[in-house]
């Protein structure tokens, strides 16, 4: 970060062109921040840097200044906005209910994707050409699987350090992808609800078994489960990284697909997707055709834990003997305000002990593609997280979100703590299996 002293860095330098106001940043959410600062200490990046620019209040101040044309949206400005994890812990801390996520998303839309021109191009390609097409995701994962099993990995030693680190972050691709046997899977026992299931983009490829477990748990709770074929990725990564065009198209497609299914709820088992889909109403607020439909759709979206607690668990749960700690995924705790429900479900499993870790709702550093774009900050936060996990002496972590699971798994691998990582639905499914075996 050591920068040469350049006169142009000094505010008095006369040569700087006067920045222009940016009307698209003049959003009402800005007016709600009264600069009290209560968000500072809840912000992971402020806690690490102690810089006001890396705090929610500071970033809001920057966006407001750019909106008013007092500063220009320069590279430096973009760095501050993109060092943010979008964990939205500040929204939980804010006494005024400022929707920081919306402010940051608006700013990122102005800035476009993060990083160097090359990584921007790669990201842009992924956001517009890859995520909207699940068949391409599938092909890519097959290639990755082939690569991981062939001797090709040895070649990575020749890669530059940065690429080598990125390669190391890639999770092993499982043998089998998620492939439901039918588009509608019937309830087991008396029918209590009819739900649709978002299978996701990464979940079916890397965590197919968790999707299967989630569906089994839903069926055991009397749900007919629809898995619409025409569904796509939720567009969370697009929205968080300033790509709104493809994002809106992806949202419209999901809205059409799921509303046509005529269900009581749309169930999501990935926190990031759930938070994004609950905000389709906001994303499409200015779309004359979709605004109302988006609102209606967002009302239907439920995290699996939220839905199951509302419905009330049925059926015999058998013992799962382990001591776990629970990591609140940011987009579940802060994004959706779902905190109690997952804990209630864990408490319902016989034989399972929950030991709370310190700051369970602090980001683990995964944050979508953040661990790739900002490896250092991501690692710092992960180290802190692994230390809190270790202090609980639990042998497993429950984190109902794929990003957190991958991140904490990589942390466990690196620190060799032997901690295993589960999705909540995974453990519930095991409890049902144990219940079945016992009866």
């Amino acid at each position, binding site marked *: 970060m050591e920068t040469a*002293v350049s006169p142009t860095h000094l505010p008095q330098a006369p040569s700087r062109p006067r920045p222009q106001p940016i009307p698209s940043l003049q959003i009402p959410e800005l007016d709600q921040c009264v*600069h009290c600062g*209560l968000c500072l200490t809840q912000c992971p990046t402020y806690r690490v840097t102690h*810089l006001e*620019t890396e705090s929610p209040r500071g970033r809001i101040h920057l966006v407001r200044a750019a909106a008013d044309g007092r500063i220009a949206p320069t590279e*430096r400005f973009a760095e501050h906005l993109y060092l943010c994890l979008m964990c939205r812990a500040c929204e939980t801390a804010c*006494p*005024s209910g400022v929707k920081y996520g919306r402010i940051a998303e608006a700013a990122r839309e102005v800035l476009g994707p993060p990083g160097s021109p090359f990584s921007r191009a790669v990201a842009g390609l992924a956001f517009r050409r890859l995520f909207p097409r699940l068949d391409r995701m599938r092909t890519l994962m097959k290639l990755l699987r082939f690569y991981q099993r062939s001797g090709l990995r040895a070649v990575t030693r020749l890669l530059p350090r940065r690429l080598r680190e990125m390669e190391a972050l890639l999770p092993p691709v499982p043998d089998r992808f998620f492939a439901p046997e039918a588009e509608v899977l019937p309830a087991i026992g008396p029918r209590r609800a009819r739900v649709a299931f978002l299978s996701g983009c990464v979940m079916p490829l890397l965590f197919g078994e968790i999707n299967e477990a989630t569906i089994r748990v839903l069926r055991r709770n009397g749900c007919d489960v629809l898995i619409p074929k025409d569904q796509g990725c939720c567009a969370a990564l697009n929205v968080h990284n300033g790509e709104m065009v493809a994002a809106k198209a992806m949202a419209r497609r999901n809205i059409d697909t799921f509303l046509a299914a005529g269900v009581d709820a749309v169930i999501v088992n990935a926190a990031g997707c759930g938070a994004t889909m609950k905000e389709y109403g906001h994303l499409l607020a200015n779309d004359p055709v979709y605004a109302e439909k988006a609102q209606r759709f967002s009302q239907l979206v439920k995290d699996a834990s939220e839905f199951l607690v509302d419905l009330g668990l049925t059926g015999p749960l058998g013992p799962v003997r382990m001591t776990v700690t629970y990591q609140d995924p940011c987009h579940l705790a802060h994004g959706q305000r779902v905190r109690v429900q997952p804990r209630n479900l864990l408490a319902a499993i016989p034989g399972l002990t929950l030991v709370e870790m310190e700051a369970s709702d602090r980001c683990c550093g995964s944050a979508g593609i953040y661990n790739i774009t900002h490896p250092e900050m991501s690692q710092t936060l992960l180290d802190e997280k692994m230390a809190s996990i270790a202090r609980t002496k639990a042998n497993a972590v429950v984190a109902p979100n794929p990003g957190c699971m991958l991140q904490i798994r990589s942390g466990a691998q690196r620190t060799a703590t032997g901690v295993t990582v589960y999705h909540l639905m995974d453990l519930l499914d095991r409890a049902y299996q144990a219940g079945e075996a016992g009866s």
Partner: protein
Amino acid sequence: MELMDRDRGPGTGERKAAWPVLTSLVIELRRIAGGAHVLVAPEDVIVYEQDGSILQAMPEIVVLPGSIDEVRAIVRAARAAGVPIVPRGSGTGLAGGAVPAGGGVVISLARLNRVGEVDLRGRTAIVEPGVINLDVTKGIAPQGYFYAPDPSSQAACSVGGNLANNSGGPHTLAYGVTTNHTLGVEVVLHDGNPLWLGGHVPDGPGYDLCGVFVGSEGTLGIVVQGIVRLMRARESVRTLLAVFDRMDDATRVVVDITGAGIVPAALEMMDQTTIEAVERGAPAGFPRDAEAVLLVEVEGVREYTERALREIDAICRRGAVRDVRIAQTEAERQALWKGRKGAFGSLGTLAPNYYVMDGVVPRSRLPETMRRVAEIGRAFGVRIANVFHAGDGNLHPNILFDMRVPGALDRVIEAGAAILRACVDAGGSLTGEHGIGLEKREYMSWVFTEADLGAMARIRRAFDPTAGFNPGKVFPSPPACGEARRAPAKIPAGLWV
């Protein structure tokens, strides 16, 4: 030294340091603190133009020292360059104390955040200025201790900022303000030399210079370490919410409670407008149709708290209370306090800006003063949200407004001045805990004579002969200044608001 030698107000233009001076200072500061900790780009320093108040002024340079030695070197370098120094903690202050009114170097102490030796037997801890207030308590709570000063912003504000402003909080009523919990401070003076004032033992001989430093709002030097008192957690803490249909009844009950010889740990009031804001922002379950609620906390041995609760309940009932709710669990108690502590921030749900007053009146004058505040609100056509430490007569009328409406700010500042005037006329004072800062310096002459202010200025010069620490704060600016053309209540020229 010429640049800051004259104690001028901000915004006069002459105070701004010359560009070549700043450039060489930046090079020097980067050598001292490292490039990453010296900020000069507009996109970096602009966020340091404001604190928790509505005032803004841009610094030229922001530096974040990581050690006491760095603070010393930075002070030396900035003073040699003749550039004003503005210390900053978490930037949660409400009077513009950390706003660099005349530009200069902002020294953020956020990285100096280590808790040093904690002596539970002696009940003291050594803390650096950037330590977050609540973190002091968090570290010792498992052993049954706490740090008493508890400003509403305690989850974010720094101990250094608390020392500078002699901050209080809801529990000030029973435990006193920051100065009552500070045994000693190590400070860096204008020449960069460190000095210990006070120490582990209370009431040392000689002048109480630690007491002089606490509350000096960064005008005497920079606190780099403090020895603070720790307190033993009480056996029993009980909290009660009393709901009133009329503000007048609520204020009379406050007088009755303290008049009955009960000293609650906290005795807080929130009016209907504040309740509305809290319930909109982060709901705490306060009744929206009540004109006022009192939050009363008692602490001590169980026998005492039970009796005190009964007595308070009886006083409330004699005083036409609508409803009394006693928190039955710790979770219920925390929920009530979360609503109270978030009250300031939640005002953003009602208006884009608020201007908070910090007047103090003798408790017995509370009922009439609150009536007067309401009258002033009506007279100036402004909406006022009251949330305050009723027990010690420390008012916080928050005037709600929208800065973008032409003329709104002027009207708000005039209304604020009228409220403070009313407090002073009732035998009270300008500030209970937020400090004078930039905001209220023009009102100092309402409570102090020329001779009083002269004595204070001489003390300042004894510590800092050229008044280069946080210039433009606390003291009224001399009449020769540019902004004196405007009414004293107005925001000084050259400040963004």
